């Protein structure tokens, strides 16, 4: 941590303009910056996607899990209207539930119209009826107890709190996130390997410089620092570049998406993703991925450097 602060100080202080001990043209600088930028771009995209998906999943589950539905199947010889009323009363008096609403027979018929057509008398058809209730904000209802209670009183009523759906959504989102994290790790591993190759190459083209530095009394740590500050600089440039491009990509997609997808398809996109724009924490995590790329670059080069220097006498 100290060395990072020192590095920044050196980066911005102009009191001493000294030639680098490691000649810049011996480091495959620009191509390494590009490799790091591409890797950090891909990693940031993945990270952003993780955020989009997990936030969308959060939206689905919070909107769906804020209400429950009780379905009452008609049974021959029983008065369904009475059953509906019993259920509604039960829900109204139940702790943690508010806004109990009975879907009237008329409404139920209207809901079925698209499938059955108009002008059909549904009086004779056994149509199940629904009662909705919202979860109150203060207390959480005890759903298991409610379910038991309902089944005892009205056996033909079934409670649906959408937990099944939410469970599947969450599982899917989790799978996607795990996959994304694997991709993230792979991308960063590839980046570290690229940095290792370049570090090795830089060291062999600088072996004379390293030898001379040893003879004039330089400690390994000093030599490593000379190389490392160089690599940290390259890593920061590449990492931030890639992160910036990813951020721009997310920003512009959140601007462009609504334009492209107007009307129904737009609604679908919105329904699925909630919104296509990344939250602030998403952008922050992209920034962190970029910095991580820079730190990994510095760390990888340092490990290889120290191993090489230790192998010299």
């Amino acid at each position, binding site marked *: 941590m100290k060395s990072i602060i020192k590095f920044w100080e050196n980066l911005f202080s102009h009191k001493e303009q000294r030639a680098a001990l490691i000649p810049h043209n011996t480091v495959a600088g620009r191509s390494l910056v590009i490799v790091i930028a591409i890797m950090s771009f891909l990693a940031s995209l993945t990270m952003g996607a993780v955020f989009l998906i997990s936030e969308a999943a959060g939206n689905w589950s919070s909107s769906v899990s804020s209400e429950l539905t009780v379905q009452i199947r008609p049974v021959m010889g029983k008065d369904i209207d009475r059953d509906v009323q019993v259920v509604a009363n039960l829900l109204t008096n139940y702790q943690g539930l508010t806004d109990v609403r009975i879907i009237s027979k008329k409404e139920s018929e209207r809901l079925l119209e698209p499938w059955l057509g108009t002008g059909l008398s549904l009086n004779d058809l056994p149509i199940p009826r629904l009662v909705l209730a919202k979860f109150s904000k203060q207390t959480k209802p005890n759903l298991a107890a409610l379910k038991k209670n309902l089944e005892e009183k009205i056996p033909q009523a079934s409670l649906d709190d959408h937990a099944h759906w939410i469970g599947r959504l969450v599982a899917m989102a989790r799978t996607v996130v795990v996959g994304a994290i694997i991709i993230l790790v792979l991308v960063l591993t590839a980046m570290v390997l690229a940095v290792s190759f370049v570090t090795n190459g830089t060291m062999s083209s600088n072996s004379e410089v390293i030898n001379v530095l040893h*003879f004039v009394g330089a400690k390994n740590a000093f030599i490593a620092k000379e190389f490392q500050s160089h690599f940290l600089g390259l890593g920061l440039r590449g990492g931030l570049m890639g992160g910036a491009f990813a951020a721009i990509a997310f920003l512009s997609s959140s601007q462009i998406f609504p334009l492209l997808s107007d009307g129904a398809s737009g609604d679908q996109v919105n329904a699925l993703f909630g919104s296509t724009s990344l939250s602030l924490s998403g952008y922050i995590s992209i920034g962190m991925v970029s910095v991580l790329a820079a730190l990994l670059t510095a760390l990888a080069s340092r490990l290889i450097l120290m191993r090489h220097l*230790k192998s010299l006498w």
Partner: protein
Amino acid sequence: MAAFRSQGLAEPISGVNLVRFENVGVRYGSGNEILRDISFTIEPNSFQFLTGPSGAGKTTLLRLVLLSLKPTRGLISLFGSNVAELKKNELTELRRRIGVVFQDFRLLDHLTTYENVALPLRVQGKDESSYRAEVQELLQWVGLGHRIHVLPPTLSGGEKQRAAIARALIVRPELLLADEPTGNVDPSLARRLLRLFVELQKSGTSVLIATHDLSLMDQFDYARRMVLSDGRLIVYD
């Protein structure tokens, strides 16, 4: 002729010998031994030439002293400590007490003359303001005052040599190793540089100069001579 003989299990006399070789042998890879049974000491504040025909192993012997080559057998101690038992950091500490002029100079081509000469101080983490004047003065002294800010590839052979000498002297080493330090300069400059080394020795540094310039050695005939031939060392005090 008084070749140094090691006295069996002599106690390590720290502070007495700057360098002490006991029956040192070295070979490169699996070839023949280049140096065999080399035993000698270098006392503080002494002046000696190391000579011998080309290929005799002068540079190899200097590399042993400089800790850039490990002996295949025998014992080397520097400033009283056995180099085989040294830790990395102690190694660096010892190197900082030794100044070295390489036969091929080994200046860093991307640094200016000034930066090359200042390098030993810079790697010790010293602040530039603390040594700038000193470095410039030394460069003036070796006649490179007008070449301070040029890169080594644009220096002549003799100028490079003087820059290399200045780099070795800047830390005021306790031991100066110089490999053919007069190989690229005219005889009068060679004498001047030699006198510089003599001055250095008078101020307390031990000097070991590898050369095969006999006429030069004859001008400093009070110096100790170490002669390498056929892989063995004979010392004339």
